[in-house]
């Protein structure tokens, strides 16, 4: 009884100390980082609550109000079939961000697994795995992604194929970083001590390697998200990503391209602004984080 309450109290203390530390760290943040964090926070909350704020109805066409400019009734105007653009951009942001986060996660997982495989096995496995990585690394992200999209869209559907295309093109640089990090970790005394103590390969990877790799992996994840947003919207824009009726940012931009000649500039403007804000806030935060972690990582992670 007393032991468990003691454990509870100490874990509460740790939690309180952690949030205190975070608050202290936040006071040291430069203004740009604070603004970025605030804007990104608002965006994420808005994206999560998209259904509460404005319910989306793809079929709610209003042919009396085709291509209306921004007004009080329609904050961002209406599109070519009279749907409210604000609702579509809001939901598009949610859809695009979800896909981007999952795609970045896929890329990071592949990169970490490959890097750990090469870094811990060594020898022939290492050589083989790294040559495969070289092959992937020498592909143009965008073109190779299109090839993957065309190959896998029939089987996985638009969203799944986009995640696969981003996941399979953005991992090589992370795999190299992880491998190099492991190479240097392997020579450290505490790893030798663990091996001497009879730690299994699995335990070594989980207890000793992964905690050291987490900062690099986490940073790579955050840096990949804006790229994934860009790729998703670009693929959808070209008509190769999500099905055209879904409100993803790329699809709305494609609508915008069709409406440009009729003078509907707002349809192209607003989804692009959404992408821009998301990308800028995320990279500002990631940049600040990177500078604090390790000043030399920039040159290594190529996306």
């Amino acid at each position, binding site marked *: 009884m007393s032991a468990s309450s003691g454990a509870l109290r100490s874990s509460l203390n740790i939690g309180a100390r952690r949030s205190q530390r975070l608050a202290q760290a936040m006071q040291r943040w430069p203004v740009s980082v604070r603004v970025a964090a605030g804007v990104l926070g608002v965006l994420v909350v808005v994206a999560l609550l998209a259904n509460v704020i404005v319910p989306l109805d793809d079929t709610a066409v209003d042919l009396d109000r085709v291509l209306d400019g921004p007004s009080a009734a329609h904050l961002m105007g209406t599109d070519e079939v009279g749907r409210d653009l604000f609702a579509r951009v809001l939901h598009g942001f949610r859809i695009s961000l979800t896909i981007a986060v999952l795609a970045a996660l896929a890329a990071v997982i592949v990169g970490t697994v490959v890097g750990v495989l090469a870094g811990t096995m060594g020898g022939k496995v290492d050589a083989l795995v790294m040559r495969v990585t070289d092959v992937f690394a020498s592909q143009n*992200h965008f*073109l190779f992604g299109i*090839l993957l999209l065309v*190959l896998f869209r029939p089987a996985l559907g638009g969203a799944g194929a986009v995640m696969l295309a981003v996941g399979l093109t953005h991992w090589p640089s992370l795999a190299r970083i992880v491998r190099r990090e492991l190479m240097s970790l392997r020579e450290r005394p505490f790893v030798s001590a663990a091996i001497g103590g009879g730690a299994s390969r699995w335990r070594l990877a989980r207890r000793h390697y992964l905690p050291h790799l987490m900062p690099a992996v986490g940073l790579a994840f955050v840096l990949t998200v804006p790229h994934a947003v860009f790729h998703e919207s670009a693929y959808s824009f070209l008509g190769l990503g999500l099905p055209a009726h879904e409100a993803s940012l790329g699809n709305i931009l494609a609508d915008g391209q069709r409406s440009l000649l009729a003078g509907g*500039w707002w349809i192209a403007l607003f989804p*692009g602004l959404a992408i821009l804000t998301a*990308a800028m806030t995320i990279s500002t935060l990631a940049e600040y984080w990177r500078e604090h972690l390790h000043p030399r990582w920039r040159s290594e992670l190529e996306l």
Partner: protein
Amino acid sequence: MFGVLAAAFRGTLFDWLVRTLCYFNTAAPSFWIGLLALYVFSIELGWLPAGGTSDPRAVEASGVDLEHLILPMVILALTQYAWFTLFVRNTMLEILREDHVQFARAQGIGELAVLLRYALPNALIPFVTLIGTHLAELIGGTILIESIFGWPGLGLLALDAARSEDIPMIVGITLCASVLVVLGNLLADVSYRIIDPRVREATT
């Protein structure tokens, strides 16, 4: 160019402005900027044609079709300049801390001469590698730009192939791009020997 200036005046408003513009440019999707430029310059102002190419025979006679090329060209260049600027700024900052630059300053050489003659050549060496890898990146970028401006090039060919699920064609274009990456890297490595005396010394 701006990278050099930003490095020289780091911490000032100018540096901040250049960096903000660069971040803006790396974050903004190229095809979005393309669409907006198309709207402003072609539809509203009517200065430039909205897309496509003119009569191929006329192009053949004059060599280039500048009127139709300006917008796509500028947009495509815009996507790349930000990377280069940030890169040059960062390498310049590193080099300006080095001993030989300090020595040049101690000799009483003017700040401008220090920047241009002592620091810039060294900053341009890693730059060469970047050009090699970004050449192939441009091919990916052209897909989006060509589809907006209706320019019938390799990018539009790839897009048409993708839309009609012409897999051999996409594989071919992807392969071309990756050969370009490898060639670009090789070229960068070889030119290192020519540009940088230190590498030449080390390998011979």
